[in-house]
């Protein structure tokens, strides 16, 4: 006897899957730190292992993204616009993709960060990861936002988080400018092709923070529409 119940009208909440996806994205990009530590010590065996982990996490994040899309058919009545949610996940996903590209490219060329900018570079990575974590913190507030009907104090506290996220992103921008200048002053000592890729890596690491900031912007947009 099938059950005739009105509970069928409650669809699966997309909020938890979005948070799970973001958690996975965070796990994935966090590995970059140990990846670059290993590569700076020329330990390419370990670096390869970490690169492999990063790409595994990226795959899992893709899988979560696919599940989430399937759970978001048309005809759902939600407090957040469906298109906004899908955009949010796309932006989260770009972070994992970028992390995978950074590790892949660096390992593929056995690219080493020049001694002169090594410590600044690690700070730069750390700050970009901070931006991702801040975006994750904001995303983890989604269920609280739902509890409060996307109004009031909770909105204020998320807005503050997004402001902090923006200031972290600003910091990574200035770090990137400094790193470029420092690299420019020592670039003649290294292979030109390597240097070209180093600039590319700097750009990509910066885009980790950029994408995080875009998550914040998207959240702001969602809150503004309420």
């Amino acid at each position, binding site marked *: 006897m*099938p059950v005739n119940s009105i509970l069928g009208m409650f669809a699966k909440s997309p909020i938890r899957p979005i948070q799970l996806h973001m958690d996975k994205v965070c796990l994935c990009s966090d590995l970059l730190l140990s990846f670059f530590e290993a590569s700076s010590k020329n330990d390419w065996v370990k670096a390869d292992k970490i690169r492999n982990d990063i790409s595994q996490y990226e795959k899992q994040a893709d899988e979560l993204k696919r599940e989430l899309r399937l759970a978001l058919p048309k005809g759902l009545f939600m407090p957040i616009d469906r298109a906004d949610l899908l955009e949010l996940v796309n932006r989260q996903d770009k972070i994992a993709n970028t992390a995978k590209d950074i590790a892949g490219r660096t390992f593929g060329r056995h690219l080493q960060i020049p001694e002169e900018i090594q410590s600044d570079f690690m700070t730069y990575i750390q700050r970009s990861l901070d931006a991702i974590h801040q975006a994750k913190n904001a995303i983890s507030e989604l269920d609280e936002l739902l509890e409060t009907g996307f109004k009031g104090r909770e909105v204020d506290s998320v807005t503050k988080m997004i402001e902090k996220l923006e200031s972290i992103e600003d910091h990574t921008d200035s770090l990137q400018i400094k790193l470029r200048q420092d690299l420019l002053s020592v670039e003649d000592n290294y292979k030109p092709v390597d240097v070209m890729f180093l600039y590319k890596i700097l750009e990509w690491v910066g885009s980790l923070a950029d994408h995080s900031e875009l998550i914040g912007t998207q959240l702001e947009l969602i809150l503004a529409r309420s």
Partner: protein
Amino acid sequence: MDILNTYGSTLILFAGIVGFLMAWGIGANDVANAMGTSVGSKALTIKQAIIIAMIFEFTGAYLAGGEVTSTIRKGIIDASYFIDQPELLVYGMTAALLAAGLWLIIASYYGWPVSTTHSIVGAIVGFSAVGVGVDSVTWSKVVGIVGSWVVTPLISGVIAYMIFMSSQKLIFNTKDPIKNAKRYVPFYMFLAGFILSLVTITKGLKHVGLHFSTVEAAILAVLIGIIVAVIGKIFINRVKIDPEADKEMHFSNVEKIFAVLMVITACAMAFAHGSNDVANAIGPLAAVVNIVHNDGQISAQAALAWWILPLGGIGIVLGLAIFGKRVMATIGQGITHLTPSRGFAAELAAASTVVIASGTGLPISTTQTLVGAVLGVGMARGIAALNLGVIRNIVISWVITLPIGATLAIIFFYMLKAIFS
């Protein structure tokens, strides 16, 4: 007349059995809709839900079911058309019960969430309009009933929206939600106790032999509301506030307090469901018993036979005791993304609307009212995702139920007529 004299007790027995089975079916199926939100939000275990449903469905049916029963019994059809041939009304009401019961079974088999109210009203209108004559239906009353099916979900939706918004303002959007939850949740409990007891006292206690003036009723209702709130407060104070849980989710302790409230709204929901839906099973039965006992005279004034309301109540209770558990178990397994703070708003709004409608004698659909209430909370951006496709199907099944109930009733009506004449 002869037919009624000869087959009188047979007819009563037959109608009694069919009515009892119908009540049984209402208990087995509808309980999922009435109690599902409480079980789904994990405020109650299945066992607790069944026990609450058994107690409150019965008291609701017994204490507040009379008004709707009389509408079903004599409000839809103009009795003057049956004075010369009262046996037609007996066949018709029995046919309506058979039709609604059969449709309920078929719908349950396929898992369509139909409304028992819609099927019985459709069936009664059907046999009367086709079997006797279009004029024999009190169309003004029918229009009122069908109109109420549009209005009540709307009303309960608006009430749910307001209750939810008030809980947001008083509790969630404040500096200390836990403190405010402890302070304000008893007020909602008071509200639930007050509305339920007010309707019961003014409408239901007459046939138990208790009479109160309006003022007395209001005072008594306030007292009962306060008692409910005080008991609720005691339980709220016992809720263990776990600061660890709030690290993951800021409002998990607040939700625990709302879960206590949800126990009370679940009682209200069961009570409301019993008070409204028992009539679907016993209204036609009451009409049959009435005619046979009065030797074919159709008197509009006659009181309800004493055993009819309890029979319906027991039918519902047995239905949910025997089958309800299985129905609930399926619900318990499904993950419902409904937190107690949302569930209570929907349930309180739906229960209040249903109980008030029952008090005015309107046979409305409990499920429909609850769907309206849930949509109201959704409008207030309180629910993560609602399946509009499913809601559309539910609405379609309600509309389809009317012609099907009518058609089945017409078929059974002519069959019974052929058998007994």
